[in-house]
C-alpha cells in the first residue's frame, strides 16, 4: 500500500497476551458450552497476525466505546442498552439474526441513526474518550472521522469513477492538493486501481457490483477516517467479489479501526479479531472471534452459530 499510514501505525500498542478463559462482556448465565462447531472453525484465523490472537476483550485498547447505548425508532426501542468497546486497529464483527439491531448499532457509531425521521438515541458513544453525542459535538464532523460503507454499493450516479473517489473531499469543500495522486492512492488501497485506471472518467455506476462496493470503500478512505464502519458490505456481492472485499479488510486493519456487521458467520470468522453477538437489541456475548466460534459461553450464541436459529 502506498497510502501514508506511518502516523497511524506508530502509535500501535504493543501486543498483549491473555488466556482464553477471559469471561465475555455479555452477561454470563451459563458457565461453559460444549465445543461442537467444527464446521464453523474459523479457517482464516491463521492469516491474522498471531499476536492479536492472544488479546482478550478486557485488554482492548478502545478506539470507540458504546456505553449503555439505547436506540429507538419512534417508540420502538431497537438497541436496549449496549456497552461495547471497539478495539483500535482491529476488526470487530457484529453478528446476530435479522432485526437484532446490528445495523442500527453501527449507525449509532457515526450518528447516522438520527438521520432517519423519528430515530433517537440515549447513552454514550466515546470516540477517543470524547462522547460523540455530546451537545457540543457536530455530527457532521463525527462522520468525517468515522466513515461508513453501506450494504448496497451506492456510488454517486452523476459522477465519474474519479469524481466518486474525490466526492467526500469535494463535497466537504476540502482543497485538493494532488487529486490524481489521491485518486490513485485510494483506488490502490482497495485494489481497484489496475481494473479502472484506464476509465476513470466513466460513470461510477458502470462498474460491476463488487467494483462499485470497492469504489465506495475507496470513497470513504479518501477522507482518511479513523474508523471504518461496514454495514453488511458483501451482502449484495457474489462470492468472488466478497473474497476481494474480505482480503481488503485484512489489509485495511493495518491502518484503520474496522467494525463490520455481517449476516455471514463464516465471514465474521474470516475477517474479525473480535466478534459480538447481538440478539433482540442486546449484547449477548463479546469475545475474541476464535472464542466465540469455538467455545461460546452463552447457549444462545452457540445456538445461533451452529444454525439452530436465526
Amino acid at each position: 500500500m502506498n497510502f501514508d499510514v506511518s502516523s497511524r501505525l506508530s502509535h500501535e500498542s504493543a501486543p498483549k497476551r491473555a488466556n482464553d478463559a477471559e469471561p465475555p462482556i455479555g452477561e454470563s448465565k451459563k458457565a461453559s458450552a460444549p465445543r461442537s462447531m467444527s464446521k464453523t472453525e474459523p479457517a482464516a484465523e491463521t492469516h491474522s497476525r498471531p499476536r492479536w490472537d492472544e488479546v482478550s476483550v478486557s485488554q482492548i485498547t478502545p478506539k470507540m466505546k458504546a456505553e449503555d447505548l439505547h436506540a429507538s425508532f419512534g417508540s420502538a426501542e431497537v438497541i436496549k442498552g449496549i456497552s461495547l468497546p471497539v478495539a483500535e486497529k482491529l476488526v470487530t464483527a457484529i453478528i446476530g439474526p435479522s432485526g437484532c439491531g446490528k445495523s442500527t448499532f453501527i449507525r449509532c457509531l457515526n450518528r447516522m441513526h438520527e438521520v432517519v425521521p423519528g430515530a433517537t438515541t440515549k447513552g454514550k458513544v466515546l470516540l477517543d474518550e470524547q462522547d460523540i453525542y455530546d451537545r457540543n459535538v457536530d455530527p457532521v464532523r463525527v462522520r468525517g472521522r468515522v466513515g461508513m460503507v453501506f450494504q448496497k454499493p451506492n456510488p454517486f450516479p452523476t459522477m465519474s469513477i474519479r469524481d466518486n473517489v474525490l466526492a467526500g473531499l469535494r463535497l466537504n469543500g476540502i482543497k485538493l492538493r494532488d487529486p490524481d495522486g489521491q485518486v490513485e492512492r485510494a483506488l490502490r488501497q482497495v485494489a481497484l486501481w489496475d481494473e479502472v485506471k484506464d476509465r476513470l472518467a466513466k460513470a461510477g455506476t458502470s462498474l460491476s457490483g463488487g467494483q462499485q462496493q470497492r469504489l465506495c470503500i475507496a470513497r470513504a478512505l479518501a477522507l482518511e477516517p479513523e474508523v471504518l464502519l461496514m454495514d453488511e458490505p458483501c451482502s449484495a456481492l457474489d462470492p468472488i467479489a466478497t473474497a476481494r472485499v474480505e482480503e481488503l479488510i485484512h489489509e485495511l486493519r493495518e491502518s484503520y479501526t474496522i467494525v463490520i456487521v455481517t449476516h455471514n458467520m463464516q465471514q465474521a470468522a474470516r475477517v474479525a479479531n473480535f466478534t459480538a453477538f447481538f440478539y433482540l437489541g442486546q449484547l449477548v456475548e463479546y469475545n475474541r472471534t476464535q472464542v466465540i466460534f469455538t467455545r461460546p459461553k452463552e447457549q444462545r450464541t452457540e445456538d445461533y452459530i451452529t444454525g439452530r436459529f436465526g
Partner: protein
Amino acid sequence: MNLGSATYARRHFIDRVVRGSCVLGTVVALVPLASVLYYVLVRGIGGIDLDFFTELPKPVGEAGGGMGNAVVGTLTLVGLACLFGIPPGILAGVYLAEFGHSRFARLVRFSADVMSGVPSITVGLFVYSLVVLTTKHFSALAGGIALAILMLPMVTRTTEELLKLVPESLREAALGLGVPKWRATLRVMLRTALPGIAVGVMLSVARVAGETAPLLFTAFNNRFWSSGVDEPTASLSVNIYANAVSPYEDWHRQAWAAALVLLLTVLLLNVSARFLVRTRVRAR
C-alpha cells in the same frame, strides 16, 4: 380444464372487440391533433419568410411586414417567466421533498395542486390588479409574472416528485462522508434529479409559451418593438388572437404563420424534452 369451445369463442370475440375499440379510440384522439397540425402547416407555411421574423407589422392595406416584435416579445415573456418561476419553483420543490411531512408543507402541496388547475385568465386578472394597476401600465414584466405564476406549481411538483425518486441511499452516502445536509441535498440529491427536473421545466415552458389569456391584460400588445420590459409587449399568441379577429386577409395570413411558429416552438421544446429523457435513460 376445458370450458368448452363456445366459451373460448366468446372470449376471442370479446378480445377482438376490446382491441378494436382501443385502436378506434386512438385514431379518434389522433385525428384532431393531426388535422390541426396539417391545417396550421398548410395555412401558415406561406406566411413564413425572413421578414416574418425581422419586420414589424405593416399598417392595414400595405403588403408584407412581419411579426419580429412578437417573436422577440414571446421570447422576452418566456425568459422573464423562467427567471421568476423556475428558482422559487425548484426551491419550493426541494422544500416539499425534504421537509414534506409538516402541516405547512401539506398546505403548500395542496395549494400547488389547486393552483395548477386555476384558469389562466384568472391569473391574468390577478396580475392585472396587482402589477398593472399599481404600475399604471401594461408591461412585459407583468406578462412574465403571470406566466411565472402558471409555471410555478408545475415546476414545484415536478421537482418534488423527481427528488423523491432519487434513492435515499445516495443521501446516506453523502451524509456518511461527513457532508452537511444542505450540501448533500443540493450537490447530490438535486444534482441526480436534475435531468428529470430540466425536462419538467421545459414542458412547463412549452405550456406557458402558448398562453394567451394571462397576457391579454398584462403584457397587452404592441405594434412596435418594445424598448424595455416595462412597456406593453407583443407576443405571438396575443397577435394570433388580435389578427384572427381582424377583418383583413393579410392579417389572417400572418396569424396562421404565427400559429405555425408557435406550434413548432412548442413541438421542439417537447421533443427535446423527450430526447433528454431518452439519452438520460440510455446513459444508465
